[in-house]
């Protein structure tokens, strides 16, 4: 038994080391923070040298990038898209509106904290963050994957009732 466990842990470690260099992100531009994505992907601040490429379907991608403010109409669609992705999957909160509401804190339709409804791994602060800050956020995510600490998708499966209760209170499902 001990030999089998050691082999399994070693196998997972090698896979994480190889897998962090080929993350694919979903090109779903939620709100105004998505204007910083084209400079990051194209020639000047090149994100493809880390293996990060934009893809258009939720079945093929690993990272869900929530850029900018979250209103209730978008949150319903975001939860459906997140549950369609295949694990292991990661969520990155982009901009200060996902941290504490940002400049829209007093609006009747904006949700202030993202991690009550979806499990978030990395936050990137700024309004908007510059492309260099975005690349720093991606490198932090790659370091967390290498150490084996990016387990948002396992938290969602274990605390499913907690997340669904929060979603039902706000979204009137």
């Amino acid at each position, binding site marked *: 038994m001990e030999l089998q466990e050691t082999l399994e842990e070693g196998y997972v470690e090698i896979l994480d080391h*190889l897998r962090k260099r*080929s993350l694919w992100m979903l090109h779903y531009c939620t709100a105004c923070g998505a204007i910083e994505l084209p400079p990051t992907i*194209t*020639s*000047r601040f090149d994100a493809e040298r880390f*293996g990060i490429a934009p893809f258009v*379907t939720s079945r*093929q991608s690993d990272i869900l990038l929530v850029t900018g403010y979250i209103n209730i109409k978008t949150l319903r669609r975001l939860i459906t898209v997140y549950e369609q992705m295949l*694990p292991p999957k990661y969520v990155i909160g982009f901009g200060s509106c996902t941290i504490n509401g940002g400049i829209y804190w007093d609006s009747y339709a904006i949700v202030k904290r993202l991690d009550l409804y979806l499990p978030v791994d990395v936050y990137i602060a700024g309004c908007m963050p510059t492309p260099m800050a975005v690349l720093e956020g991606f490198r932090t995510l790659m370091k967390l994957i290498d150490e084996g600490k990016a387990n948002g998708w396992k938290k969602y499966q274990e605390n499913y009732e907690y997340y669904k209760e929060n979603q039902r209170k706000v979204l009137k499902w």
Partner: protein
Amino acid sequence: MVKEILTLIFTPILAFFVGIFLLGFKRKMVARIHRRYGPPLHQPLLDIIKLLSKKENISHGVMFDLGPVMYVGAAILTVLFLPIPGFKQLTPFGDLIAFLYIMVIGSLGMALGAGESGNPNASIGIARALTLMLGYELPLIIAGNTLVIKYGTTDLYKFMTLQSGFHWNLFLLPLTAIAGFIATYGAMGEHPFDVVVAPQEVATGPMVEYGGKHLGLLMIGMAISTYIETGFFVILFLGGGANILTFILKQLGVIIVMTLFDTVFPRFRIENAVRYFWRWPTLIALVGLLIVYIGGK
């Protein structure tokens, strides 16, 4: 006898690794043309490892699962009918005409599998893929049959050995070579004719519902298909090779020239692409056929 069977078993593995090297080289070259650094040369291998290690799989039925299996299976079968320098593979059992038939089985299997998924984007993508196949097969078959008339045989291994010592068909029959080169763009899905996988329009066409292990199998099939199509052009028009290293170098030369044109063009619509294929490359190939028929005999 034993040596030949061992070569038959190792050829798909060789085709897979050469295909990965060619795809990685293409991505790096496109990045350098855009004046940026690109991903490392082994990036397609990392992508395939990540896709094959996903934890769940979504399936829509039995035919949906069998689509990628048919694609990879047809690719492995086709690569056994291509000779490499020094070994005949399965060419005594199947010649040029059998090869042109077997090349099509993979796309038909993908069509059945993607149609089962129920997504309208997949149906549009599959209809466009099969229509494009009607377009590029015509110049390719005329170019192949020109060589049959010139050499008097349909054996692919003899095509390679009769062109040794710089008697390449690229210099002897230049018009047919140009028509075959343009038809190879359509077969590989390169840029003027990549309406099948159009990420901004139909969300990658037939592959829209595939993820995880199915997509990993599809990418393995795509790497082997790259080896097959460039290898076919090298055998017909560039003289094969003295040993395996010159063969791979000639395939690399084909990829370099194709990429130089591929990064500059936008995308044709499907009816414009088919109309183009039936006009200029077909005319050039017919003129080449006339030259061989009248002059060569």
